[in-house]
């Protein structure tokens, strides 16, 4: 019995991971908003990228020990049915909460910047429905959409980064580390807290064409998204200077600065459209992961039936969790970092330790058995 029939390639996984890391937060950009020393944020981004390599490698290593099992399945193998299932449900909760924040980001971005009079639910419901639609078609389609979309995102990202060159002033980046190491620490944590979303790769490994590409894909994803985040941070600081920390939608404002000749102005809506599609794809990825996880936890045969209910739940969450856009910003600044870090790192470490203990005793036979079945 297999819940998901499709297979994706290493580059598709890389694309999905890049989108997972980059997109949900591009618009709020918690890396620079409301922090103490904004001109050093790019250092935090860089350091965060490097520091997130070990935990992600740990996740990869763990998943590769059980290449034919999802994180839901092998956590039950390692911790027993009861505790394994608890971990599974915690992960589903984590993914759904991310889905809710993503939906809210779309809604807030549009109601804040584009159409203030349209009810936020219009945007949230539309994106939720479209994502559910995409997630229903399975991982294969989501992966393909992600692959194409990553190219689009990189293109628009590149344009948004380079086109406002007229208003960039790189002296804004000075002085470097003027107030010591401490103010850089918090944004570093923020950066890592988004990278550890890569725990979702635990759901994808059995559905990879070639599980051995996992390490390469994950590291590639870290490199690409880390570079993009850092470049964005640099561009933002260069354009806006220290005022960047008080902006509501920094990346959107960056797009607003684009002006080519006399005819291409205020085209921020186009990168925003690309961003919306990207959120929809990433959301579909998370919805798919949650649905497959629940199907495996409860022993259901088809995950498709769970997609729409889960989408409805995340739409409801996105309305219930946050009262306003400021609330969402506050959440990213104060709740998200410890929440995401403890949850993902905690789960990874617990599972890893368990796998070490089990590896020494009984589970090794099972693992070998499963490997045989696989190959």
């Amino acid at each position, binding site marked *: 019995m297999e819940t998901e029939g499709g297979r994706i390639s290493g580059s598709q996984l890389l694309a999905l991971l890049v989108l997972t890391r980059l997109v949900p937060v591009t618009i709020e950009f918690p890396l620079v908003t409301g922090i103490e020393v904004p001109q050093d944020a790019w250092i935090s981004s860089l350091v965060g990228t490097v520091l997130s390599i070990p935990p992600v490698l740990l996740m990869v290593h763990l998943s590769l020990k059980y290449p034919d099992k999802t994180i839901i399945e092998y956590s039950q193998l390692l911790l027993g049915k009861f505790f394994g299932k608890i971990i599974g449900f915690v992960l589903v909760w984590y993914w759904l909460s991310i889905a809710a924040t993503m939906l809210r980001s779309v809604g807030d971005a549009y109601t804040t910047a*584009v159409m203030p009079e349209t009810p936020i639910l219009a945007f949230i419901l539309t994106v939720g429905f*479209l994502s559910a639609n995409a997630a229903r078609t399975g991982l294969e389609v989501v992966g393909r959409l992600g692959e194409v979309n990553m190219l689009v995102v990189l293109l628009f990202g590149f344009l948004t980064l380079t086109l406002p060159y007229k208003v960039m002033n790189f002296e804004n980046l000075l002085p470097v580390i003027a107030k010591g190491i401490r103010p850089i620490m918090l944004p570093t944590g923020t950066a890592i807290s988004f990278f550890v979303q890569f725990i979702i790769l635990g759901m994808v490994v059995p559905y990879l064409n070639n599980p051995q590409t996992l390490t390469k894909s994950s590291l590639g994803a870290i490199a690409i998204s880390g570079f993009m985040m850092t470049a964005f941070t640099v561009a933002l600081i260069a354009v806006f200077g220290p005022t960047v920390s008080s902006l509501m939608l920094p990346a959107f404002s960056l797009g607003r600065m684009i002006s080519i000749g006399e005819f291409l102005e*205020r085209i921020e809506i186009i990168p925003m*459209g690309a961003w919306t599609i990207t959120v929809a794809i990433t959301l579909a990825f998370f919805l798919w992961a949650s649905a497959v996880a629940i199907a495996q936890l409860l022993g259901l045969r088809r995950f498709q039936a769970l997609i729409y209910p889960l989408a409805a739940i995340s739409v409801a969450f996105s309305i219930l969790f946050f009262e306003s856009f400021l609330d969402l910003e506050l959440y990213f600044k104060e709740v998200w970092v410890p929440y995401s870090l403890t949850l993902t790192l905690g789960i990874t470490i617990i599972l890893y330790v368990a796998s070490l203990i089990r590896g020494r005793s009984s589970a090794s036979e099972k693992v070998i058995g499963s490997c045989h079945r696989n190959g």
Partner: protein
Amino acid sequence: MELLCSSAKYRVPTQFTVNKTLDKDDLLMLRSLTRLLRKNMWAASKPSQTKKDSTGGPLSKNVKVNETLIKQSFGNSSDLVVRELRVGPGGRFTVLVVYVDGLVDKTLISENLIERISDQTAKWCNPEQAYDDLKNRIIAVSDVKETGDLDNFLNHVARGDCGLIINDVAKALVADTRGWAQRKIEEPTTEATIRGAKEGFVETLRTNTSLLRRRVKHPRLRIEEHEIGTISKTSVAIAYISGLADEKVVQEVRNRLGRINVDSIQESGQIEELIEDAPFSPFPTILRTERPDKVAGALFEGRIAILTDGTPFALIVPATFTMFLTSPEDYFERTFMASAVRAIRYLSFFTSLTLPSLYVAVTTFHQEMLPTPLILNIASQREGVPFPAVVEALLMEVLFEILREAGVRLPRIVGPAVSIIGGLVIGEAAMRAGLVSPIMVVVVAATGIASFATPVFSVAIGARLLRFIMVLLAGSIGFFGIVAGLFALATHLTSLRSFGVPFMEPIAPAVVSQFKDLLARVPWWAMHTRPALVGHKDLVRQGYDQKPKPPASSGKDTHR
């Protein structure tokens, strides 16, 4: 009438079986009911057909009986010709010559059959000897078959073969004498190209297969004929190059064609709808064309063609989205021009899908995107227009579609008049009357022209329909609506498959080796491999290092 009665008769016991199972199984009531009904209806309809077909049985030894049977089967149709000849020494033997007038080559029959058979010098002793002699020597037609079955015999006659029956022999000879009035091979009207072959398929299957065979002169070109349609008995041929086409896909095509159970096939469009992967998609997943060069090109990539008798439109499977935006001349024109034209085509497909909706979104919600002078201009033009932009756009689009449909149906003589009036009404008068703004006319005209830039009409229709939905989305929620529509479309297209091949290949999934033939078309000397997902049986199509270069010495000025 007879068919109707018999199937109704067979449906009666069906209901009993349904009721019986219903009592047993309450949970799956609805599903099993429909399934059973369907199954039993198939079961009921199939024997009824075979029963109708098998009226004849074997041929009789008696010529008179055979003659009556044949005439009865055709219900004394006026185009059936049954000629009785007295042949052999002293006219001892009777030969029936049976053919359908209009389907046969009459000179062939009179010169190569009747004239030679009537030769009285033959010294036959018994009918069997006469039969063998006819078969082996006398009939001067290349393809002669024999049959002992009346049905088979009638089938051949109905196809334009000439049947010969000798008295006291329970077998018949059928000679291939097919020949009927057919359209000349002309340039295809719907797929004109500037460079490339000017011939198109015609309505006769045999001519069409010959057009293919002339382009693929290799015994590995396989042409399999199937008969579809219980009454129309249309010949449908599967053509592929053995060793290039994936045998599994060929088998799948055979299976899907074999599943078809209809009374008649008029056009390959029916076959398309009966075998396609996504019946409810606005976009076709099977490519149709009336160009032999396009079909041959597809065969060389490892695809499979389905040719149908009675229509010049051949089907190509597996089809991918990019094939619909490709014209054969892309491969014959110079590479830079071909690539540029291809880019224009992609742009115009996108334009025909989204331009009106972009206009609506920009003028209604995102005025800041346009340069100030332009938006002021638009605003002043729209001042007198009583409708919101979305109504204006829908109005104009519908008018345009009416004009376009009328243009197709118009008799040649009134055509120009109506298009002039239509153009005037839509362009000038509507504007003057204050119904629409001039910029809207520009948008609609540009959209219309863009939709004609798609090489394959059937994919343009999809964009044409979706355009209206996009306008409505843009009118209700602006750019976000367009983005939502595009995303839904992208999801749909990405989830499609055509005979196992992802429809959006090589874009999604990305097939890097195929990028050589996506937006840019690389020169032929760099076109080393076939499309990976289709032609994987024999991937390399040509030799490497074929880039032409002048001979080594010509670099120096040797001519001095």
